């Protein structure tokens, strides 16, 4: 079954060093898929590779199919036509993602002028409508403002307005609320949910925050060391993680946010060690050097297996002898 986005064996390397390796997943139409990973997991690079926005020096391989067309091998011309129109991205830090020298209204209008061929007046009107749609209090005032004159929450709403301007099939959001306050984060997440529903777009939400993904997404991908290590319905993954890495993340997140009263010092469950820098991941299973379940068999790279809930591990948690 072809979904809105089909990613097959996507890989990205930086001068020979693998940053993302063999990532495959499907994003169904209207689905909300989360991609979880810590820094150094390759999640943002994956998003950039899908959008064809990799920085100098990084090269992508594999296939990314959007409505049947492969984005990886596509020329820049066709890619530019699709970006912003059929597939759009929202970035983490709106201050750097918006042009500081251009009024915000004009930036939103520009998307419409490029992809819908609207004239100045028409695009400006539509832009105003979009700004209202993203729940900005004073759309006209905001449209006249420059990015630095707006708050973080307002900027992020502007980015969303630009992203949904052309009703994209796929919306990629890379840590869209990480830089925002908790209260604003809540509002923006609700907004993203509403917009995705209204447009019927599929959503790929990338975050390091398990709770955010839990709230927004039906399915989850877990990424570590540039590889997918687990995939499945959010509820399953969070309640019964199979991969030791996922289990560690879930245990930590649950403990930190749990309301339990008395706390013994030093009692938070935490994975040992830290994410290795690029190029220093172990051969075989990428998680091998931090995994308490690792043994000789982990010298071979495990593949994702399982149908609905898949895991790439030789000793998944909760199965077989511990």
């Amino acid at each position, binding site marked *: 079954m072809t979904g809105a986005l089909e990613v097959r064996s996507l890989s990205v390397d930086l001068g020979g060093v693998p940053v993302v390796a063999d990532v495959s997943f499907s994003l169904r139409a209207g689905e909300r898929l989360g991609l979880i990973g810590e820094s150094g997991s390759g999640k943002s690079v994956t998003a950039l590779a899908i959008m064809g926005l990799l920085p100098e020096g990084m090269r992508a391989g594999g296939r990314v199919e959007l409505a049947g067309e492969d984005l990886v091998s596509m020329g820049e011309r066709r890619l530019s036509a699709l970006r912003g129109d059929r597939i759009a991205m929202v970035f983490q830090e709106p201050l750097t993602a918006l042009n500081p020298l251009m009024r915000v209204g004009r930036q939103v209008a520009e998307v419409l002028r490029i992809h819908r061929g609207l004239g100045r007046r028409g695009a400006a009107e539509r832009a105003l409508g979009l700004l209202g749609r993203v729940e900005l209090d004073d759309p006209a005032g905001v449209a006249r403002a420059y990015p630095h004159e707006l708050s973080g929450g307002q900027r992020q709403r502007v980015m969303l307005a630009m992203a949904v301007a052309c009703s994209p099939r796929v919306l990629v959001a890379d840590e869209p609320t990480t830089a925002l306050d908790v209260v604003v984060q809540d509002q923006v997440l609700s907004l993203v949910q509403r917009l995705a529903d209204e447009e019927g777009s599929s959503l790929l939400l990338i975050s390091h925050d398990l709770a955010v993904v839990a709230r927004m997404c039906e399915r989850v991908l877990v990424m570590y060391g540039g590889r997918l290590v687990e995939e499945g319905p959010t509820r399953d993954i969070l309640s019964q993680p199979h991969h*030791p890495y996922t*289990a*560690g993340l879930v*245990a930590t997140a649950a403990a930190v946010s749990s309301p339990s009263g008395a706390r013994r010092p030093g009692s938070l469950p*935490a994975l*040992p060690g830290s994410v*290795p*820098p690029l*190029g*220093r991941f172990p051969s075989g299973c990428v998680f091998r050097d931090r995994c308490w379940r690792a043994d000789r068999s982990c010298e071979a790279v495990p593949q994702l297996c399982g149908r609905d809930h898949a895991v790439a591990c030789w000793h998944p948690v909760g199965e077989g002898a511990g």
Partner: protein
Amino acid sequence: MSGTVPPLTRPSLPLAPAGEEWEEAPFWRRWLGSPSAVAGGVIVGAIVLAALVSLAWTPYPPLAVAPAHAFARPGPAHLLGTDNYGRDVLSRLMAGSLTTLFAGVVSVLIAAAIGVPAGLVAASRGGLASEGIMGLADVVYAFPALLAAIALAAAAGASTLTAMVAIGVAYMPVFARVTRSGALQVLSTDYVLVARSYGRSRAAIVRRHVLPNITPLLIVQSSLLFSLAILAEAALSYLGLGTPPPAPSWGAMLQGAQNYLFDDPLLAVWPGLAIALAVLGFNLLGDGLRDVLDPGLRARR
């Protein structure tokens, strides 16, 4: 039950694995990694070598006049030929390199000795002191260095020393400005904030945190200014405001060769080439040092 929740971490963590990634790339390795540093280093090294060697030996005494052999073509006897007085060009170039380097070093030292403290004071005091010092620096910067050199030469007599003082003072504002902006950056960091919180005095912070962190910046700046100083000294000597003849100075050699451009154009080419090469060399070295000293690149594989 084991296996569902990961075991708790012991607080003790092994350090990141000791390997190339985390070890300091040795100095020479970083040097080799920067083409500018290598090229600049080679050129400057050659000049320094020539200067040092000239202290002990030159093919011919640089001041020895031999009218019989004037305007000799480059050949086995005189590798670069002779000038209008029959003096060996190569020997004069070598001796001249000493003057050049000397001029560069002294000028930069003077500029730094005034400019760096000025910049530090301006950065750490701020307010009126900063405005005052930077304003003064601007005035000096705006004043044509050449005019100052002429005035100084008129007052104290033309010599390499007056040239160097003039150049040093003229370039002081550059050091002041660079130092101030570098110092301001360091002073706004978190580690300086923390240093203040455990009671470090302003002076101690400048000494322990600001200076070590702006040193690379100053070294690079010195190197760039060196090349400007060389050019300036050559220009001043050319104008007769620097090293007085017959002492060999590249600028003076250039000036002397001017009159004989049609007889022996090569006489102008050698000192000109030497000046250009020196300027190029120091510029490349400055750029290269910027690469080598950047702590961000230290951990490169």
